[in-house]
């Protein structure tokens, strides 16, 4: 939750239980957080550079995401957040450096079942795509070529369970294109959940979703991360929610400005990131129901 304060129109945000502080960073910049018991990181960027048509978008990014992390990727528009996710998923290739997903370059990954991706909006939804919500969620169960898939009904128990978890059971038989933006987004989240992924990668998944829907969504992510140990990497402009929910934060502005536990992120770093004064403010009311 961000809050505009006073005539300077500065941003004031604070994770639950933290006091405002102007202290400088604690030396995490550009470094990976502490290890996770010798396991391979789920996702690693090693000195990654990326350019679009010779225009540098990301410069020398080194960070790693460990199993069970909840990582918020923060940064202003054009800072390279979406590019970072696309590199992580093998949808773009690094100009220099190395990206490893589950220890392998994404284009060599064979265990896509471990990955759930939620984009801002799916291309097909704008096209009056005839698929039902149930059909779209069932796509998440894909495990490779199955010549008889056409003849199988899609309402498997996993699909119904995923729909239930996002509150879309009554709309299972509706065309996805007939749903509101928020409902479409929940369907895409159900599609990612049904995969029982170990890693969820989400690119501004609540853009266009109302406040109640956002709260529901963050509760769901919180549960998945805390109770099921699913690793979450989330891009969002909702700084307050990110600082409240995430365990780790990576702040980007083409370079990695900050990477470390969210409670170490200071007003100075946020101000540097967004180019305007940002103050951190205690805010925990909305999550008392948990």
């Amino acid at each position: 939750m961000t809050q505009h304060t006073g005539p300077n129109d500065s941003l004031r945000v604070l994770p639950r239980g933290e006091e405002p502080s102007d202290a400088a960073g604690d030396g995490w910049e550009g470094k990976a957080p502490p290890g996770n018991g010798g396991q391979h990181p789920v996702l690693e960027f090693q000195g990654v550079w990326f350019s679009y048509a010779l225009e540098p978008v990301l410069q020398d990014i080194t960070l790693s995401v460990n199993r069970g992390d909840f990582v918020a990727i923060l940064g202003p528009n054009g800072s390279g957040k979406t590019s970072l996710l696309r590199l992580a998923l093998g949808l773009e290739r690094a100009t220099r450096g190395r990206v490893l997903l589950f220890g392998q370059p994404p284009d060599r990954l064979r265990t896509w079942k471990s990955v759930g991706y939620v984009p801002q909006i799916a291309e097909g939804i704008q096209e009056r795509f005839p698929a039902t919500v149930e059909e779209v969620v069932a796509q998440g169960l894909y495990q490779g070529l199955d010549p008889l898939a056409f003849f199988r009904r899609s309402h498997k128990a996993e699909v119904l369970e995923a729909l239930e978890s996002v509150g879309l059971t009554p709309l299972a038989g509706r065309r996805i294109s007939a749903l509101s933006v928020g409902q479409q987004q929940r369907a895409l989240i159900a599609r990612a959940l049904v995969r029982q992924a170990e890693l969820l990668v989400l690119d501004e998944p609540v853009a266009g979703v109302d406040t109640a829907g956002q709260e529901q969504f963050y509760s769901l992510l919180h549960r998945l991360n805390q109770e099921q140990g699913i690793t979450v990497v989330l891009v969002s402009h909702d700084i307050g929610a990110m600082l409240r929910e995430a365990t780790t934060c990576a702040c980007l502005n083409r370079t990695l400005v900050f990477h470390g536990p969210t409670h170490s992120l200071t007003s100075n770093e946020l101000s540097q990131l967004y180019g305007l004064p940002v103050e951190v403010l205690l805010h925990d009311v909305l999550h008392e129901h948990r």
Partner: protein
Amino acid sequence: MPAIFEYDFMVRSLIGGALVGAMAPALGIFLVLRRLSLIADTLSHVALMGVAVGLLTHTMPVGVALASTTLGAVAIEQLRLRKALPGDAAMAVFLYTALAIAVVVISLAGGFNVGLFSYLFGSILTIDAGDLWLAGGLAVVVLGSIVALFSELAQSSFDTDLARTTGVQVNGVSILLAVLTGAAITLSMRIVGVLLVGALIVIPVLASLRVATGLRAALLTAVALGVASALAGLAIAFYANLAAGGAVVLTAAGVLLLIEAVVFLRGRKRA
């Protein structure tokens, strides 16, 4: 027995029409959903170029057209998928280049002749058993591929990034779809004509998308409408002594208009 069934050429036409009517929308639904409707028109012109070259050089026109559409389909998809050119630009380049080559080749051959006209507009009188076997074999390959790769085609039509991160080989599926479309167009030329076959790929799909809920349902509805339009159009052509290709496409367009009108009136009634 109705008079239409007393003529062997009409029976062959009806069988050929049903095969084309099933194949074209089955491919078309995935093309329309990917905003690649124009690829049907582009590959039709590439097929025309192949026919013109085949007729000029006295080399199997259908074989040359098939080779041309296959190469054209692969090239267009490679350019599009590698982002060397935007999809519509890649298709436009191939469409106009193929048409220009066809025009030059036709002029070299001294202008249009009956053989070329039969490919341009279709000729139900010229369909022989060999054409039917070819169309039948291709229909088995096209419909079999669509059923076997339904999940991959559906996912890559919905969102290519989502499909890739689910493990679908999007590029391979896209190239296969384009190649099958080229082959279907080439082998449908004799029935509805190279200039009109693209309409059967698009129009029944648009009608289906107005009424069907669910991708499977939309696919099956499009195929049913395609087959019905082809059979009804050929029957109208026979009894009214009209050009078969034109009658088939106008029937499909009529069905689309009818469905649009019904949906519109039902919407107004509800409001």
